[in-house]
């Protein structure tokens, strides 16, 4: 089954928990999605192998960055009828706080949904959504 067929099937059944399974990188990170009504949260479950600096210890900046880009794409597949994965034009990450060795959550705000380009703001948090640890901007080329 192609990704487009898998995504269409997930949409038809509303079974969003299968979405991360459709993307190998999301599967490797063991990403989960938590959909409640109009809210879509991606979850990066903590694993020791996500640690970047064992002395702090803190999650690897690259792991969190990759998680946020993935969360943006998963949100795009959930919130639109995009047939396939949009291409990333650019991705800008601001690290506000060190990420502790615990589960990390990401919420996505669609700043602009365009025919050619969409702009997403992604916020990662660990304790409460109003205390983000990392924020990112993702520009996607729709196709």
């Amino acid at each position, binding site marked *: 089954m192609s990704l487009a067929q898998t995504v269409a099937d997930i949409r038809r059944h509303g079974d969003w928990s299968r979405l991360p399974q459709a993307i190998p990188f999301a599967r*490797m990170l063991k990403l989960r999605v938590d959909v409640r009504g109009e809210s879509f949260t991606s979850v990066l479950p903590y694993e020791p192998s996500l640690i*970047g600096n064992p002395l702090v210890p*803190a999650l690897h*900046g690259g792991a969190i960055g990759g998680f946020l*880009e993935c969360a943006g*794409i998963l949100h795009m597949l959930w919130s639109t009828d995009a047939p396939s994965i949009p*291409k990333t034009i650019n991705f800008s990450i601001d*690290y506000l706080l060190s990420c502790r060795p615990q589960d990390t959550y990401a919420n996505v705000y669609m700043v602009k949904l365009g025919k050619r380009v969409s702009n997403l703001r992604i916020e990662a948090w660990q304790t409460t959504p109003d205390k983000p640890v990392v924020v990112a901007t993702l520009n996607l080329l729709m196709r």
Partner: protein
Amino acid sequence: MQTSHGASAWSHFLSVSPYTGRMGIEAISAEDGGCVLALPYSPELVGDPDSGVLHGGAVTALIDTAFGFAVFFRIQQFQPMATLDLRIDYLRPARPGAKVYTRALCYKVTPELAFVRGCSYEEDASDPFASCVGVFMFTAGQRSFGEQGKSA
């Protein structure tokens, strides 16, 4: 590509990070003109299963790691630091199946900050698929992983 002496002297910084080890990131070379790190292609790092193109998140890990490596090489010691920001422009998709490289240069250091730029490519650094810049902030903390960085 053989690992250069300069890179092997510094590559223990890669082995202390579990995530870097898990991704299979390798140090290739370390010179004044820049440090090169590599990420071997793996099917589990794919973002789009129809095309086989690596997920941007895998490239992000390589870039963040290469940037940190470039800072340590520039200051010739390990100093605890955190990524402050990172920006990646994707010029084109990475070629499916190819090992990817990031060349990173730390071009300015202040007492608090380090500024890095670089690009990612398959074989030819003059034909990159991604261009990137980042800023790192030095933090307080333990300065050694047990072995101080050797000069290259």
